[in-house]
Structures are given as C-alpha cells and as structure tokens.
C-alpha cells in the first residue's frame, strides 16, 4: 500500500500550512513541564510524544466557565452569538477523539446546544498515534465510542503517515500535499483499534453499595474536582445567573461541576440525594462505566488515564471497574 508521509523535519511547514485553514492548537509542553492544548503559533511545536495533556480537549467545546444566555429587559434572554472561529486541533489521541464523540452525543442531535454546536462545526480534528503508558486503559477495556477524526497521523520511521478520514480531512490533505512524500508499506495498527468496537455492555446489576472500596474512595478523596475537570467525557455543569450592576440585565453562566461535590445532588432546603461521598463515588462509577439516560450502556471512560494521574491522592476507579465490568466486552 502507498502511504502519504510527512517527515518530522517538515512538521513546522505542515503546521504553517494548516494555519491557513484556521487556528491550530495542539499539545504544548510549558516551562513548568505541564502539557496543555495551546496555540501552535510559528515557533511553537507540538509535543507529540506526550502521553496526555492536563485538561482534555473538551475545554474547547465546553468552556470551564461560560455565558450561555444574556438577559436584558428589552430583548429577554438571548444566546450570546459567537463568531465561529475555525480551529484545528492537532495531535489528538484516539481517546480524546472518542471523548469528543461522546460529548457530541450529549450536546448535538435533534436539539443541539447552540454554543457547543457552533464551536463543534468550526472544529477540525487531526489525530495522531500514541503509545499508552501504565495509566492508560484503552487497551484493557475497549470503548464503543468512535475515535473519529478528520485526519490522522500514524507514526512511521522519522515521521507520520497522513490519512484523511473525512471530506474536511481530504480538503486539508489536498492543501498540504506538496509537503508529503509517497512511501510504500502498510500502516501500522494504532490505538484507534480499541475504539468503536464493543457495541454495548450487557445489563448488569447495580454495583453493590456494600463493597468496601466505596468507603475507601470516600475517605481518601479531597473533593478537589481534578478527576472530572480533566476527564474528556465528564460534562456535568452547574448553572448560575448573575444580575448586572445596571439593576436590570443579567447573564447566565455554566461552569464545570463535579459529582463528588456536596451540592451536586442537593435540592432546596439542603436535602441531598447523595449525602455522603461514597454514594457520590457510585454515581461517578455509574457514569464512567455504565452510562446514563440516552447513553445508557455506553461506558464514558475512554481510558485516557487523566483522572488517575491528576488525583492528588492517587484514587483510581479502574481496578474496581475491571473487577465489576469483567474487563469490557
């Protein structure tokens, strides 16, 4: 088979060329050693060897804190119009691609979320091969979620083989063609292999609340929120409204939330449907490995390993999941 390849030495040119199609963001290692998705401006190259970024690319689609509605007495509630800026996310690992397809299922569809949909339609996804480390679990329990991208870079000696996987991808590929060389040889299998495979999980009884693990998690959890903030599929949000100083207008914001926080299931009068942290861990477990509502049966965990890396006390639901879910289907 013939593959179109980009040499590592040509990467900067490729990025420069891509910039003609929109802002290009990718994993960048900061001075502090933290890898974050950030702008790949001329001179800033992506760190394609990094296993994971601190926050997942969901930050581009669902901002940590954003205004979802504005209110004025004259025009009532309005969705804030956002100029859709073309954004190319470069160097996404298959787990992050799967994470985006999970978010798509929640926020697109018949009744798409206006802000999400606007941003999503302006987004181009360029995936890249990765090599999982001991925190990754995509290889342990494959996900039914598709690792869908527009373009994909598969690692080959001193470069990447570039394939387009959508019409948008084909357009970009055509635009960067001169930078690519044809090479013979089969593409190596990559971690996309673990995604879009299992169709659905079988019905299982609810995890037993008496398992000692819940209490252990609860005792060690600092409630810092890191696990869900960096998770590519955690998308709980809180909604708040603030009146403005003019005494009449207001804005409504949504903010990333975490199911381990006290208020997550609290209702008026202080009553809570998940008073203790152990219950909340079961809730988290449910979401990550069983799925809710329309996504029932679709585990949300894409195996990126972020929560395990981020948790200051090293909490990890994975071993329990392997025990209860039987290592995937």
């Amino acid at each position: 088979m013939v593959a179109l390849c980009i040499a590592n030495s040509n990467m900067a040119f490729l990025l420069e060329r891509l910039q003609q199609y929109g802002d290009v963001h990718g994993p960048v290692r900061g001075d502090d050693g933290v890898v974050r998705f950030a702008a790949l401006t001329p001179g800033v190259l992506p760190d394609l060897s990094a296993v994971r970024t601190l926050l997942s690319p969901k930050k581009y689609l669902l901002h940590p804190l954003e205004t979802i509605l504005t209110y004025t007495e004259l025009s009532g509630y309005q969705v804030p119009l956002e100029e859709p800026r073309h954004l190319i996310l470069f160097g996404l690992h298959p787990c992050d691609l799967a994470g985006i397809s999970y978010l798509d299922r929640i926020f697109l569809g018949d009744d798409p979320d206006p802000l999400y949909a606007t941003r999503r339609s302006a987004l181009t996804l360029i995936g890249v091969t990765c090599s999982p480390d001991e925190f990754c679990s995509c290889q342990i329990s494959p996900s039914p979620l598709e690792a869908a991208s527009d373009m994909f870079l598969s690692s080959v000696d001193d470069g990447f083989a570039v394939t387009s996987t959508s019409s948008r991808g084909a357009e970009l590929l055509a635009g960067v063609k001169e930078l690519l060389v044809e090479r013979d040889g089969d593409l190596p299998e990559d971690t996309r292999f673990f995604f879009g495979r299992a169709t659905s999980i079988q019905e299982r009884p609810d995890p037993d609340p008496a398992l000692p693990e819940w209490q252990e998690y609860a005792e060690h959890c600092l409630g810092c929120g890191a696990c869900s903030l960096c998770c590519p599929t955690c998308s709980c949000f809180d909604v708040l409204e603030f009146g403005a100083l003019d005494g009449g207008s207001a804005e409504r914001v949504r903010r990333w939330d975490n199911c381990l926080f006290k208020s997550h299931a609290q209702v008026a009068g202080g009553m809570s449907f998940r008073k203790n942290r152990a219950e909340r861990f079961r809730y988290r477990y449910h979401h990550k490995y069983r799925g809710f509502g329309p996504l029932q049966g679709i585990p949300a965990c894409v195996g990126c390993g972020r929560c395990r890396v981020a948790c200051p006390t090293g909490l990890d639901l994975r071993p329990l999941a392997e025990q209860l879910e039987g290592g995937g289907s």
Partner: protein
Amino acid sequence: MRKLRLAIAGLTACSGCQLSLLNCEDELPALMAQFEFHFFPLACSPAVLEGEYDAAIVEGCLSMPHEKELLHELRKRSRYLIALGTCAAWGGVTALRNGEDRELMRQQVYGQSPVAVETFDPLPLGSLVLVDAAVTGCPPEKEELLKLLAGLTQGALPVENDYPVCTECRMRENLCLLTERDMLCLGPLTLGGCHARCPTLSASCEGCRGPVPEANVKEYLALCAKTGRDEEAVLGRLHRFWPGWVL
C-alpha cells in the same frame, strides 16, 4: 428609582475589604448610581447611623464590646447583613491564637503597663447575629464583591460556592504545587472563587478564603505526612485564617 441605602462598617480588621470596594475605581460611578453609601466612615462623613438600610456590609471580626453593640445596631437596621471578608466570615488572621491566654499575649505587646483595653478572642459575625451572605477572602475578590452588589440591585444574594481552590486551579491548567512541587498548598481545603489566584503565580494557596464545605483535613494531613511534613506545622499553617479546623 430609589437608590439602595448601604451601611459599610469595619470592625476589627485591616480595612482591606472596604478598600476592595474603593478599589473598584472603574465601577464606582455605576455603584454611585445604584447605591447611597450612607454610613461609610472610612470614606464619608459623618459616621451616623440613621434610619434603615437595604444592606449592611460589614468587614472584620468582633473583638471589643462596643463592636458587638454596633453589629446589633446594624443588624436591626438592615434588611440584609453581609459579612465581607474572611475576618467577618471566619475570624480571620486576628483569630490566629484564639484559645491562648490573651493577657499573656497582651503583655507580649504592651509589657506590664496597664493599658486599658478590653478585648476578647476574635469572633466571626455569625457568632452574634444572623448573617445573610458572606463574601470571603483576605482580601475578598473585587469580582465577587461587585457580583454581590450587582445582585443586591436586583434583590438577589449570592449563591454559595462549595468547591475548593483546586477546582479553579485545574480549570486554569496550572501545575499542581502540592503534588508536583511538594509545596504546602492549601488549595484542597480552601473555598474556591478566587480563580486560584495564588497557585496561578506558583505561590501556594495560603487558605485566605476559609474552609471549603466537606474539607478532608485528615486526608490532607496524611498526604503531607507522606512527604515528611510535620503535622503540627501543617495545622499551624491551616489556622492562619480560621481557628476552627478539627480533624
């Protein structure tokens, strides 16, 4: 439209919370359009309480008898009483040695000379009167103070946060000082809302906003112990803004 009448008072404190208001240089005109700063001794004369107030915004903790009187008076006259800042909400830095011998402390400062000052261990406002809302921080964030005031113009009090500083720190994608730099960052135990001001500049959170609900002190201490920190020292550090920490 009637302007809302405010009483802005300082008890035992550094005036930082009141100054935070005066530091809203850009917003002062808009604030003056909505509010009458009727009682505000720091910035306006004369200091006379008169009639009723839509809100009393009170800085500082209680540490002298006459402050209790003033607070009762403010409570009586005001629809809402708001604790502004960590001293008012939690006791703050002045409560650092609560529970120790006050006379001994007095002597450390004034020696044996008989200076007649009647003070007691600093207390937060809520220990004496009903507090309708609190904006914490030492000093409070301008943004939160302005949100409070904007809310008041529409009759709303702020909704409480329940997440720690870490949450906003991670949202900003900062390097974690606690786990990656072995610094004594109090982010996990401290109420969020400051957008992780300090860790964002690589300075440890010193806990200036008071405790977050459900703070897991035990686990935090265990984490510190793992890196060889002395529990006494960590607890000492925790007490900087709130004397009430318990295991």
